[in-house]
């Protein structure tokens, strides 16, 4: 039996001095104090416009005195970078996938008897355990609200009522109709255009309805049109277009950065492969 020693590291660190040298511990961590004028865009816009310099001054710019609505603490800036990297603000697809992973135990099943029991208990007016387990449609829509209410927190447009509320309003006839029956339904192109938050709202509702109607586990991807408009951050949240981008990068022999950023992104959003693939509606059958 032979004992093979570990060979020394063939590529030692380039800088002299090992990690146990007392000199490094004694050197102070000096932060040069100087006032930097805020010339660049703020951090989370600068990411997109790619103006951030490769220097320590990037941190100083962040900590420098800037107008109040642009100043970020370090934690806030890191939150924005994480949010943009994970695309939870810009992409409803990833946010929806995250929510599915988090709340997969709350997804209503397709079994008819359970639904029947739920409706019976609600008509009787008592709270059963099954009724408390499943989320109502309103609560389910509220789950996906934070990402857009965060973006457009100052919006004056009220959110559309859920289908349950609309149905109950129609059935009880308690509210006044905004449109008389005599007037036909026409697109209001003459009035002012639809607000951004409203269009986001509609797009997201349709997206959620589509996912629930398909029931076959088909993932919803980001369209090429949206990538052409939104650029690289939107591309990062897509499934198949990102593979084409990776193909392009392998031909260029520079795939390393993309794979690493993707890996960090999954670490940040805690999207493990098992969680992603173990979900399907057929699991409840």
């Amino acid at each position, binding site marked *: 039996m032979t004992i093979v020693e570990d060979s020394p590291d063939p590529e030692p660190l380039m800088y002299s001095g090992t990690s146990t040298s007392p000199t490094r511990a004694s050197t102070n961590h000096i*932060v040069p104090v100087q006032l930097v004028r805020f010339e660049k865009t703020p951090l989370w816009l600068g990411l997109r416009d790619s103006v951030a310099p490769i220097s*320590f001054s990037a941190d100083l710019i962040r900590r420098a005195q800037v107008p109040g609505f642009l100043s970020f603490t370090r934690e806030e800036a890191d939150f924005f*970078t994480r949010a943009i990297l994970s695309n939870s603000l810009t992409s409803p697809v990833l946010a929806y996938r995250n929510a599915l992973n988090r709340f997969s135990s709350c997804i209503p099943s397709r079994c008819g008897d359970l639904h029947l029991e739920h409706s019976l208990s609600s008509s009787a007016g008592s709270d059963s355990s099954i009724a408390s387990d499943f989320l109502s449609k309103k609560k389910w829509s509220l789950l996906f609200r934070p990402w857009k209410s965060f973006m457009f927190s100052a919006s004056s447009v009220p959110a559309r009522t859920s289908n349950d509320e609309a149905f109950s309003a129609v059935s009880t006839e308690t509210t006044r109709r905004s449109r008389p029956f005599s007037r036909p339904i026409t697109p209001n192109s003459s009035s002012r255009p639809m607000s951004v938050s409203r269009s986001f709202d509609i797009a997201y509702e349709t997206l959620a309805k589509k996912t629930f109607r398909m029931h076959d586990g088909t993932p919803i991807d980001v369209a*090429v049109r*949206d990538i052409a408009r939104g650029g690289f951050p939107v591309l990062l949240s897509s499934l198949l277009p990102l*593979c*084409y981008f990776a193909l392009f990068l392998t031909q260029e022999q520079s795939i390393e950065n993309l794979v690493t950023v993707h890996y960090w992104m999954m670490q940040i959003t805690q999207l493990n*492969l098992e969680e992603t693939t173990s979900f399907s509606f057929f699991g409840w059958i």
Partner: protein
Amino acid sequence: MSQFHSECQEDALASPTNTPSQRILDLAEDLYRLYLGKESYFELNVTHQARVSVIQSLRSGSIDCFHPILYHIWDLLCDAFTRFRSSPIWKRMEKDLGWRTALHSFDTAYDILTAFLEVVTKQEAWAATADMKEDVVWAWRARLDAFLETQLALYFQQEDIESWD
């Protein structure tokens, strides 16, 4: 990387001075070896200037050198995206996926996999002639496999479900 960030925050809270502790310095050195060391398994594709700036700041005892690397990588990827927009692969993507289609089938994902196989076999043949380290090549092949699996697993899972009938 995020773990390193949280460790640094804890260390900054614990230490009375602004000096990072020895443990944090060791962690920074490990990060350097992992992501920026020559022929490491997780080596990043950054400029020599950025690498030298990291080395210099590590020598001076500061650990604030990794955050600029993130911006640098992001910039490089944005530049690559602009090149990607004008490349023939973008046109091929438009042709395969459509302009505003959000639902794709198993066959589309399978075509992408075959295209990857062609490119990767070429690259491996080149790596054999270029006398690269085998384990480095295998490490990158494995990471690419993991990347493709996270992107395409849902489509293949869908195909498995259909074959039950």
